[in-house]
Structure formats: structure tokens, C-alpha cells
């Protein structure tokens, strides 16, 4: 799994291992949600998963940007 490019949270603290994993998952879902060649059942469910993971990342102050592909 490709680690996330980001190394700190919004407070400037280094990401923990769990936070890195979560953020990596978010980035992978975001990449999948951006694709237009997937089946509707894949795209719709990936987007649902994406926004749930976005909330976990946002709560933990890892991201503040909009996902934009939801």
C-alpha cells in the first residue's frame, strides 16, 4: 500500500501509524471515486465509504479539504 504523502495533522503533529493507515485508505478511496470507468454499484458504494472515512479523518484533524468527488 502506498503511504500517504502527508506526514503531519492539521496541528502539526506527526501522524500515528493508525492515522497514516486511515489517511492512506481515504486517498485510495478518493482515487477510486474519481474514476469514471467503474460499475455504478462500485462507484456509489465507494463514494459512500469515502465520505464516512472523510469524517473519521476530519474528526482526527487529518484533513479539512472537501473530497470533491462525492
Amino acid at each position, binding site marked *: 500500500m502506498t503511504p500517504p504523502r502527508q506526514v503531519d495533522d492539521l496541528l502539526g503533529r506527526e501522524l500515528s501509524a493508525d492515522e497514516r493507515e486511515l489517511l492512506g485508505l481515504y486517498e485510495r478511496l478518493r482515487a477510486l471515486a474519481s474514476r469514471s470507468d467503474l460499475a455504478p454499484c462500485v462507484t456509489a458504494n465507494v463514494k459512500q465509504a469515502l465520505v*464516512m472515512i472523510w469524517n473519521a479523518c476530519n*474528526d*482526527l*484533524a487529518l484533513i*479539512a479539504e*472537501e473530497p470533491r468527488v*462525492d
Partner: protein
Amino acid sequence: MAGPDTSPYWNPKTETLPREQLAALQTEKLRRLVQRAWNESPFHRRLYERARVTPDRIKTLDDIRRLPFMTREDWMACQAEKPLFGDLVTRPRADAIRYHLTSGTSGRQPLRVLDSRKDWAWIGEMWCYGFWAFGIRPRDTVFFAFSYGSFIGFWGAHYCCEKIGCLVLPSGNLTTEARVKQLVEMEATVVCATPTYALRMAQCAQQMGIDLRRDGKVERVIVSGEPAGSIPATKRLIEEMWGAKCGDTAGMTEIGTIMIFECDRQPGGTHIIEDHFIEEVLDPTSGEPAGYGERGERVVTSFGRGFIPLIRYRTKDLVEKVPHSDCSCGRTGDLYRGGILGRVDDMKLIRGTNVYPRAVEAIVREYPEVEEFQIVITREDDIRDEITVQCELAPDKRPLWDALAPRIGKDLADVHEGLRFNVALADPGSLPRFELKAKRLQDLRPKG
């Protein structure tokens, strides 16, 4: 074994942040939010250009005061100019998955809101902060006494409970009697309702011969939509009738969710979700910040709703902020003592619905048979608010009253989220007339 269910906090990381770190997080989020609003919302760009402020001026939390206020009137005007949603929104309508609206204010135009998939998930997330803090866990069975209409109400709370993993009982169009039966039969452990309706259900149960304290399993009643949820006497009555703890929450359609909640320590106030909102309290006249313990107007900045940036929005809610140390729960979010205390303007809150005299007038004036009218607000049995529109007809039109009254009542309800209005016929010449500024509203409820 310790697991997530044993955590007292929904989000231990940011709910317990030291205040200076919380401020740093808010500053970072504010900086990004203002930049996004500038880039994507013509409404905000226009507002900031008029105030000669650019996003790069936001460097500290205090810099928020450089930003102009946003008002409901601004929002309504922008919607009227560019129907249906104005140029406040940052994305095309096709990106939205939810539509909700407020009650009408001046005239019949409500505020219309759109939410993306992410926004809707965030709306549920904010309720999770509150429900978890009041002790709701996956083992709970949660009953919603809510009509699931275009009023946003408990919609987000429903999704919050699904997310937590509760068994959710949506009661939709059930009668009060059917609701009481179902929540007893299904052994609901949590009930969500307005304070008024929580009492009504309890009274209905008594009439049905059901003792909720004995026959029911409800441990917690979560209320929202009326300031009464933080009035100690009301809360006590709910707790006595249900044999359960009663916790308050408060939100608004403009943010789509709640921004304050009572934790299970119940220190006499509601915690602010400060990692997702900046809540300023300002003197409504001077606009200067009010200190701890001073009453003022809530001005909210929300970080979560992507479709509609809400920055320094003047809510006209009256509040009194106190430090987080007034509560022993460990959360570092400050509190509003007594929840939402009321309104700083003339808007009236009736059973959870906003009623503006101008909106009532806009309806009544569509009936030329009505010569004069008065709005009278009373509190019955110390708890239930009633609103009555007294109408005076021209003498020759009085025979039409039986046909007119239900139409007026329906029109009033239609623009007020279904709120029931009493409509009464006044005697000829009995209502006051005015030469200058009319005073057509009497609020006879106890003050304070």
C-alpha cells in the same frame, strides 16, 4: 476488555484538546474555509470584496473579526435574486443528495439548503458527538417521534444512530397513541422528540393506562427544537413522566445539524462542538465580544457543510457562554449555560418552529376579507405554547368565516413546517388599529 463502547468521548483526540491547541485547529480550518469560500462562492467573494478583506488576512483566530457578518437577510436576498439557491452554494445542484428548507420569514420564501453526500454524512457525525456524550451506545433501541419531512429536525440524528449501530425505530406518520404502543412494545431505550412532544406522549400514555416508568424501558429522552429542553422545570417534568434522563441538544437548518449538546454529567449547560464550529458571542448592538457569563448573540462559523459555507452567521440566538471547566466530563469545548436562552429579535419559537410576524402577515393579507388581525401567543399548562391569529372581518363578510378559517389555518401551517395555528374570529371593531408602526403581536408567555 476495553473497546470503543467504553470511551466516554466520540472523538477523544479533539474533544479533549487543550484550549490553545483547539484554537490552533480552528485557525487552520478557518483559514482554509475562507479561502474556499472566496474561490467557490460568489456570495462570499462579493461580501469580502465589499469589506475589503482577502483570505490572506486570516492568520490568527482573532482575525475572524476582520470578516463581515453573514445574515439570514443576505441569504434570502441572494436566493431571491438567483432562484432557487442563490450564488452562495459552491457546487452545482446535481452534486447534492439532500434538500431541506426552513420556515418562511418575510413573505413566503424559506431558506433552501442543499447537501452533498459528504455534507450529509458530516451532519450525522455531529449528532454522534452529542448522542455518544449522553450515553447512547450500539446496544440502544432509539425511537424517533419525528415526521421525517422537509424540516431537517431529527433527520441527522436518525443517521447518527444508524452509524453508532443502534436499532432505529422511525415513527414517521404514526399517531401519538401508536407511537406510545410501539416504543413500549419494542422496548425502546432512547426517545427523541421536542420537549413539548415528549410531554404529550407521556400524557397520552397515562390516558392509555400505560405507566412509562413501569411498563417502558426508556432510559434517556433526547430533546431538541425548543429552548424548553434546557429549562430545569421542563426537564424535571419529562424525567418524572418518563422515568428517564432528559438531555438537550440544539441545532439549526442553516448548519444542518447540532452545534451543542448536553453530556451525561449535565452541568446545567450544553457543550459546543468546537473542533467543527467557531461560536462567537457578541453584544447584538455593538458587535463587540461578550465575555464568559455575559449574554449575547450567537454568531456561528461552520467547518463542515461544503455546499454552503457559513461564516460569521448571525443567528439571533441569545446565549451565555461559560468555560469548559464548569463541567467535569473532561471535554474542553466551552458551554452555553442554560442552552439557547431565546432570541434577540422578534422571531417567535412555537413548539420548535420559527414564526415571524411578517410571514403570518404575508398569509393573512392574501385574504382581503380580513380587515385586521392580531397574533396572540400563550403558554398553556405552563408548558405548551399556543399561537392564535385573531381575525376581524368586515361585517358583511362574517358569514364567510366558517369557510375561511380552515383555509387560513392551513396556509399558515403550510409555511410553518406544519405548525398548528388557532384561528379565531374577533368581534367587529375589537382589534386595535394603527396609524404608524403596527403592533400586531402579543406574546403573553411568562418572561425569563
